[in-house]
């Protein structure tokens, strides 16, 4: 209590002089209630228990809170850059976090719980029961790390999502067999959509903390003092009760926190160890990227050739429909198309993520390919086609033997260009849970807390794919033009 009065006095003393700068705190309003959500009555404002705790901390320091919107996965990098002073939005305590940043005492204890479909409730109780099954979670979280361990130990198949809504939707839809996430998120989804049950025995326990830049140790200690006093005076309990996440176990946890001294920073993974640990995962992701790009390009080339042939040879109605396809596909973001194919169509066809990714990228690039082929086909002089006709070749033979091969030579350079672009655009499919090279690199970078090594490794792998491709295309082009 004394500390609170003291702090309050300090704050007042400071604000009595020159007004102190507001306390900028970063969180992700997309994470939603009960953490941080846009206020339904005034979407310009945010509310949630993290919002209230941030306000408590700010006022405890004699400052005004000011919210900074940041993507959840970027909270740690942003706080280190100095975009804001404190990051808190369901940030999970873990050893690497403590090794790289200044971290507050935990202000909430949560449980990682398994959600399964009601029919499976009896047999899928623990991770060990989920051998060979797909288990969804949010990428770059403690739960994801638990699943990676479970892959080694039990053969569980982790599926990473960029948000915490779609894992449950896909659970109900049958695309995954279980979801491992915080109990708060699990219960929220149960209220919103339902259709699944939460297993009562938690898989693990975790804690929410506030994260600060490494150099901000002094501010971190002040934040800890405010948090401890708010635990003692019951303000935190009132907030958690108001948001419906309080339990008696939480009260017992608070007593333990107040009794013990702050935990010491645990040893972080060294750079070399981290690189070794992540290399197999990166290689697997690189194979996914390569396979995905090759299959998508094959689909794009085949579909693009059909569309181009339809637009050059087809009857007017077919031409118009194919033209519409090309315009709509080129005119809308591929990200949107991936969402529509994977989530939007899930009521009609339940495509596996990889198939949806190939389909989405392939059909998107088919529109571009078809325009290249159409232009190339139309660039072949009429006299070549007439010469072929006087030789008694059918229209199909002329296309296949005379017009197509010559058009292909014209199309080769722009096609190579598109393939290289596709190789990089394949990183977009992480939004529909396919973990490819860029996504895996982001996970790696989050865990080692630096983009330098992962970024270089990732760039080298992409170049290792694209450079030989351009080289081969150039050689082929030269051979065709010299011959």
């Amino acid at each position: 209590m004394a500390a609170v009065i003291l702090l309050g006095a300090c704050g007042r003393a400071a604000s009595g002089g020159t007004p102190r700068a507001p306390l900028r705190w970063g969180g992700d309003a997309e994470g939603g209630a009960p953490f941080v959500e846009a206020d339904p009555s005034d979407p310009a404002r945010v509310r949630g228990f993290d919002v209230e705790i941030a306000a408590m901390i700010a006022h405890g320091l004699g400052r005004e809170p000011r919210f900074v919107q940041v993507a959840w996965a970027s909270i740690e990098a942003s706080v280190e850059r100095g975009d804001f002073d404190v990051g808190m939005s369901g940030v999970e305590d873990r050893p690497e976090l403590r090794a790289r940043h200044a971290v507050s005492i935990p202000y909430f204890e949560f449980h990682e719980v398994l959600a399964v479909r009601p029919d499976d409730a009896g047999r899928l109780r623990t991770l060990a029961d989920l051998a060979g099954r797909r288990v969804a979670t949010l990428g770059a979280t403690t739960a994801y790390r638990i699943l990676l361990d479970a892959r080694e130990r039990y053969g569980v198949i982790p599926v990473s999502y960029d948000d915490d809504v779609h894992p449950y939707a896909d659970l109900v839809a049958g695309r995954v067999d279980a979801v491992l996430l915080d109990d708060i998120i699990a219960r929220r989804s149960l209220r919103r959509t339902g259709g699944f049950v939460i297993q009562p025995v938690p898989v693990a326990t975790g804690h929410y903390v506030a994260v600060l830049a490494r150099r901000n140790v002094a501010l971190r200690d002040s934040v800890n003092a405010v948090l401890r006093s708010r635990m003692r005076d019951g303000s935190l309990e009132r907030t958690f009760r108001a948001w419906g996440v309080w339990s008696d176990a939480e009260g017992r946890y608070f007593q333990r926190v107040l009794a013990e001294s702050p935990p010491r920073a645990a040893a972080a993974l060294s750079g070399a160890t981290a690189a070794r640990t992540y290399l197999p995962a990166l290689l697997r992701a690189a194979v996914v990227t390569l396979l995905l790009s090759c299959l998508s390009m094959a689909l794009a080339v085949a579909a693009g050739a059909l569309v181009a042939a339809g637009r050059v040879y087809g009857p007017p109605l077919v031409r118009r429909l194919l033209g519409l396809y090309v315009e709509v596909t080129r005119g809308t973001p591929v990200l949107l198309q991936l969402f529509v194919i994977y989530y939007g169509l899930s009521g009609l066809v339940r495509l596996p993520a990889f198939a949806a990714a190939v389909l989405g990228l392939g059909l998107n690039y088919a529109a571009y390919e078809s325009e290249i082929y159409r232009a190339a086909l139309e660039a072949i002089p009429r006299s070549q086609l007439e010469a072929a006709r006087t030789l008694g070749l059918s229209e199909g033979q002329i296309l296949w033997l005379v017009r197509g091969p010559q058009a292909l030579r014209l199309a080769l350079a722009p096609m190579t260009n598109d393939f290289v672009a596709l190789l990089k655009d394949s990183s977009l499919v992480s939004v529909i849970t396919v973990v490819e090279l860029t996504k895996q690199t982001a996970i790696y970078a989050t865990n080692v807390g630096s983009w330098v090594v992962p970024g270089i490794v990732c760039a080298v792998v992409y170049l290792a794919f694209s450079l030989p491709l351009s080289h081969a295309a150039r050689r082929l082009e030269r051979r065709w033009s010299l011959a």
Partner: protein
Amino acid sequence: MSAGLAVRGLCVSRGARAVLRGVDLEVAPGELCALMGVSGAGKSTVLRAIAALQPFGEGSITVGGFALRPGPLPPESRLRELRSKVGMVFQAHSLFEHLTVLENVTLAPVHSLRWTRERAEEAALALLTALGVAARASARPRELSGGEAQRVAIARALALDPLVLLMDEPTSALDPARRRALGETLRALAKQGRGLLVATHDADFARAHADRVVVLADGVLVEQGEAREVLLRPAHRATRALLSAPDELAASPNPY
């Protein structure tokens, strides 16, 4: 008549402009007929109509018993008989750039006549040898000289063994020695019993090699007869114009 080429009352219009206004002409087997006229007289249009590359509004075209009718071009599937009876050598040769000389010549026998590749290649090499370009069999069209490309184009057109061979301005890019060699080649082809219709404005070439001359002016046939006769004693001013210097021709596009 059924063995050769017969064109009756051929009319072609492009938009409102009448390009051909009732052309009658015949080419008998074994005959080399020169189709003469200044540029724009309609020579190429006659050849294109016979090769079913150009629809015509009125008249009829018969090649060895196969009849083309006025109206839109029929689909290629209904022209197979015509294609095997009429060969065409284009002014710019239009060889297929992505294929070798040999492949250019075997393309039609293999894919249109369904010959085996061996048989087609044997026949193609025989043709290329007869035309003196067998040494270039594995070359690509862009590596050939103008004269070589023309002989390859002739070989390609002959690969289907047509009754009638159409040639558009074959002498335009040849020096006098090559022109003479071409004339001898064409005479040899006529001797095999083929009918040759050669569009040209080269009076010397026609006089030296053609059996018969038909003169086209402004879409109408104005004079025809034995080559020497017509070209020594031209009855029509269009023919006389053809016999004068080429630069004067260019100055008077309309001989009327």
